[in-house]
């Protein structure tokens, strides 16, 4: 019985839309994180001296610390962005698809 419903879910064009939208969104965010993260690691590997420089003359803040602080905040914001969309748009769409599949049974 449930396989009939699954079949119906898959035939719904909204299902394709959900999969595509969510996949693209998640992979974009993941790519941003990966590029920044490994870019930073390459900096550590090839130019560690630069990270030790202070951000301004006479300041105690080194470039490396500042960069990591910004990364922490930025990754956290990306997470927030994802959660917002997953709990709002994607969950609504999922609920709609399920509702439509159940309606056809009756």
């Amino acid at each position: 019985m449930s396989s009939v419903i699954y079949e119906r879910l898959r035939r719904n064009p909204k299902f394709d839309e959900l999969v595509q939208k969510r996949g693209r969104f998640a992979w974009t965010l993941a790519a941003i994180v990966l590029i920044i993260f490994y870019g930073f690691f390459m900096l550590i590997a090839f130019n560690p001296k630069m990270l030790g420089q202070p951000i301004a003359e006479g300041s105690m803040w080194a470039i490396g610390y500042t960069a990591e602080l910004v990364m922490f905040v930025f990754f956290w914001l990306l997470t927030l962005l994802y959660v917002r969309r997953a709990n709002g748009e994607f969950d609504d769409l999922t609920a709609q698809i399920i509702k439509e599949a159940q309606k056809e049974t009756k």
Partner: protein
Amino acid sequence: MIKRLTTALALLAFSGMAAAAGPALQGEIQTQPTNWHAIIMFMIFVTMTMGITYWAAGRTKSTADFYTAGGGITGFQNGLAIAGDYMSAATLLGLTAMTFSRGYDAYIYMMAFFAGWPIILFLMAERLRNLGRFTFSDITSYRLDPSVRTMAALSSLVVVVFYLIAQMVGAGQLIKLLFGLEYNVAIFAVGVLMMVYVTVGGMVATTWVQIIKACLLLFGGTLVLILGFSQFGFSLTTLLEKAQAVHKQGTSLMAPGSLLSDPVTALSLGLGLMFGTAGLPHILMRLLHRRQRQGSPQVGALRVRFRRFLLQRHLPHGPGCHPAGRSEPRVLRGR
């Protein structure tokens, strides 16, 4: 029941391995005189968590209860539990100590641990949750050939064994230091406690124990941070200046040191730390808490927030230990 006994026996064998791994570290830490304050505090927490385990054992009736707490855990609770799972001895003791001795290098580690979380959330969390299975092997065999189960089980075990040994050595050393117990006795005490929590209480108990642990760590860590920071008039500049003045590495504390001397090492560390986080079985299985409307995505935000909170604290912690350590002979003794 027999299954649980087998698990218990296996865990006992692991604690034996940890006992074997311990002596390597033994030379550095002297057994302390019995510390009654610490023992009483520890006993209070053990009694409290045992109480929770007993309560949870009464609630655990089905397989779903045992593995995923029957889906009765809210997103917020699960987030705290994941944070507790991840803020382990390695994070608390290891990273603080590393910041203390190596400066900026430890901060690179923190960044790498942290960067694993968004990746888990974006690419894995929702898929794991939606399947509504119990274990990691269930998931791999759902998509792939069922024989992949063996492989998944083996890889999970390998990861867990190494992880567990490190944690148990850490816990054993800590108890030895606090209680003045023999290392072997300490290790077995920790091993027995762990087994009771997991085999009797299942996921409900471990989740609650982790939630409490997370709250204690967040509270204690923040308190130590504020107290430590107050020594420097809440000025980061003063703190960093003093740390550089007394540390033998001096100004090079602020730059990456010898740890990542060549690109291959750097890349390999980055890969290992980031995707290692994404592969920890005990973290992944928390994402399996069953299909709940407002479950996992929320959890993602929470745990990342908590992680960041903890990790950020290490930055002032480490250097903070430093000048304070010099002026306080008791801390100095540890070196």
